[in-house]
């Protein structure tokens, strides 16, 4: 049974380490099994490793599954694991950040690999759950020992070819056109799918994508535009699956500079005043955004992490009541801006679901409390280049911006604290994505402590304390979790994990 599906973009490479990007990782995992994989509920479960854990504080072990063969018939051994991990940490690979704590990887026996870390890293297995295992022999034979090196002008075999132990094998790869997979008959696991062929096609234009599934030209597609969700739901042949994604979309404000880069206010920074932040926060009606802009396809939140992430505090996830425009204006007046002010806002237009429209709605809401926002919505690479910090830790050029973040590698809240909320510091590499430069020393301390803390209750207490700090500071303005909306023909059954991954092994056709 052939399963045809599409989404907006193509898998950029067949090399599982080429990009640290959800789509590439989950797609290549259909071919390359990881040591440890996630189940339908994102819980870790054994894959190529049957057992794993920490021998001591700084040593991890992985016991490999015996009798696993690559799809070309060669056996899978510890050598392949060591090779793969080193390759993922090697030149050309984009996965290096998952190896920050790793000191050494060594083969203990054919079925056991140990990893020595520089410091205790309780999340190593989580980080590596997306890391597919490659064949050493295959890579060596095909001159693909390293991932493609951009500086050399030559192509890498692994970019267009793939061979792993996974549930599927790559049959045809036409970049930008289609990618065809067929089941791997020798897969170690018992297939839960009933597919004989999978054809993946990128369809960049959303309207075409919707038309294609309506016309039955494809069986499943994702990134359903929120606007079309309703019609697709009404189509008797199509089922729509929706669930919250772990990514939180939020607004950030520059609280670092003494004068905003793009504002009518000179000589001071209004965002440094908590009243201003509060006025803004409490003037944004996320429910209205949910209703019209997102057509119900969002889950408003007050926190920077989503349910399902380790460290999510359900009882803190309550947005304060909305302010009436006069109340907000009064707050602003108290802060010294009775006439409001003018500020620039940056927004991507091709990164998150309806990103530009959300920003537009925000502009309108802020306009009503006297803050005139000049919106600049642009394509993602220009946008990121503008707002993100530079390599030396200096801030990007933005005053008010929108970002989305998901601790997708670790599923732990610490990642969020470290990357987004801690004071930016080029030396320790903390807070490097804290584009607005929010800083609270107390919170910094808590975050540093929770990284090392292995006692769950203590750690949870730290997390709760830290969370309250940034919530009360109105450090960020969390908007919502965007929904993952998929559409499939009615005869397809599939599983939709919350991390926006799409494992083909759960697909069945009736």
């Amino acid at each position: 049974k052939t399963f045809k599906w599409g989404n907006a973009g193509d898998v950029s490479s067949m090399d599982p380490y080429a990009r640290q990007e959800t789509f590439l990782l989950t797609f290549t995992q259909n071919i390359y099994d990881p040591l440890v994989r996630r189940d339908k509920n994102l819980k870790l479960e054994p894959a190529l490793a049957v057992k794993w854990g920490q021998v001591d504080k700084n040593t991890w072990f992985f016991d490999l599954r015996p009798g696993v063969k690559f799809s070309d018939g060669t056996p899978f051994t510890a050598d392949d694991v060591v090779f793969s991990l080193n390759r993922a940490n090697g030149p050309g690979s984009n996965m290096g950040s998952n190896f920050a704590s790793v000191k050494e990887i060594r083969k203990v026996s054919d079925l056991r690999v140990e990893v020595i870390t520089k410091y205790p890293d309780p999340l190593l297995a989580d980080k590596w759950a997306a890391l597919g295992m490659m064949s050493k022999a295959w890579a060596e034979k095909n001159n693909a020992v390293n991932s493609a090196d951009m500086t050399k002008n030559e192509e890498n075999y692994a970019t267009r070819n793939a061979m792993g132990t996974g549930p599927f094998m790559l049959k045809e790869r036409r970049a930008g056109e289609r990618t065809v997979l067929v089941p791997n008959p020798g897969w170690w696991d018992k297939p839960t799918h009933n597919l004989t062929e999978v054809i993946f096609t990128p369809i960049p234009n959303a309207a075409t994508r919707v038309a294609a599934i309506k016309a039955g030209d494809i069986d499943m597609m994702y990134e359903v535009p929120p606007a079309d969700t309703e019609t697709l739901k009404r189509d008797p042949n199509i089922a729509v699956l929706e669930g919250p994604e772990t990514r939180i979309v939020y607004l950030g404000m520059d609280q670092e500079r003494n004068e905003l880069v793009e504002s009518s206010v000179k000589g001071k920074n209004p965002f440094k005043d908590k009243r201003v932040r509060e006025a803004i926060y409490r003037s944004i009606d996320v429910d209205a955004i949910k209703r019209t802009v997102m057509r119900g396809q969002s889950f408003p939140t007050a926190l920077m992490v989503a349910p399902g992430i380790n460290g999510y505090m359900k009882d803190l996830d309550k947005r304060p009541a909305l302010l009436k425009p006069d109340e907000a204006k009064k707050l602003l007046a108290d802060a010294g801006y009775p006439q409001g002010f003018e500020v620039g806002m940056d927004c991507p237009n091709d990164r998150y679901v309806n990103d530009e429209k959300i920003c537009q709605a925000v502009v309108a809401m802020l306009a009503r409390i006297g803050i005139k926002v000049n919106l600049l919505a642009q394509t993602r690479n220009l946008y990121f280049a503008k707002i993100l910090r530079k390599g030396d830790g200096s801030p990007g050029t933005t005053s008010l911006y929108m970002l989305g973040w998901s601790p997708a590698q670790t599923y732990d809240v610490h990642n969020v604290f470290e990357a987004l909320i801690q004071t930016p510091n080029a030396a320790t590499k903390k807070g490097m994505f804290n584009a607005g430069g929010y800083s609270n020393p107390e919170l910094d301390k808590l975050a540093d402590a929770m990284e090392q803390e292995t006692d769950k209750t203590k750690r949870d207490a730290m997390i709760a304390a830290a969370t309250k700090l940034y919530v009360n500071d109105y450090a960020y303005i969390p908007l919502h979790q965007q929904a993952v909306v998929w559409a499939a023909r009615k005869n397809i059954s599939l599983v939709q994990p919350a991390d926006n991954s799409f494992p083909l092994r759960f697909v069945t056709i009736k």
Partner: protein
Amino acid sequence: MLAFVLRRLAQSVAVLLTVGVVAFFMFRYVGDPINAMVGQDTSLQERDELRQKLGLNDPAPIQFLRFIGNAAQGKFGLSYRTSEPVGRMILERMPATLELSFCAAMFSLLVGVPMGVYTGLYPRHWSSKLLQAVSLIGVSLPTFLVGILLILVFAVFLRLLPSFGRGETVDIGWWSTNFLTTKGLLALIMPSITLGLFQLTLIMRLVRSEMLEVMRTDFIKFARARGLSNRAINFGHALKNTLVPVITIAGLQLGAIIAFAVVTETVFAWPGMGQLFIQSVQFADIPVMAAYLMLIAFLFVVINVIVDLLYFLVDPRLRSQGGAARVSGH
């Protein structure tokens, strides 16, 4: 003749070099490719290292020389987005675009020329006026809207044609073609119409006005006075004399078609160069953009040379003059 070809060649090199310069200097500003190349967690240091390795921090002239040097050898490097060699990425997508453009051009010529001839021969007939007004729709609706409407009607409601993609293709060497399978041919219909509609209108109107003008020339009057049949006059004498400007415009339009394929390909998920280019712009994939532009310039030059050679075939006056004079188009 030889001189003519040489001059064209010199001009081509000039055009390509200019395009190279323009391309290069524009690309310096299309955004930071690094962000497209790495995931969200990649540390800022790693980003900087990558930038360094790619030579993006070098002074512009050095980057340019490197770019031209490599381009001259046909090396455009690896795509920042997919790490594949750019040359091959483009080559792979070229058949799709060229076949689509060819069909669109054929559609616009095969429909546009007869329509133009008809409206030119009977300018006062109501059906001509109708045709003319209807043809204007081709230039009154944005391409993307035409495409989507076609998809809605023919794929979603009538289920006659595939909604996207190339259907089935057959590989002949590295060239994958749509022409050998029914599905492939069906898949060509809507994109070709979408892409060719605009050109159809242009060509029809051009042929019409040329016909109107030619029909008033003395030699047509004289041909009538000689008692030649209408067929011989309309097609033998009149049509052939409209060919020179039509060839010019059709040639230029073929270039435009290839470039306009950007939009059509996006709408129909047609895996061609245009779609590649749009993605490259989004991702600041400089090597791909550069190669694409150079290729377009090259195709343009080739088309121009072919157009010029066609003039020689059509117009004996040029043959004897050595092609110095190029009949100017409109």
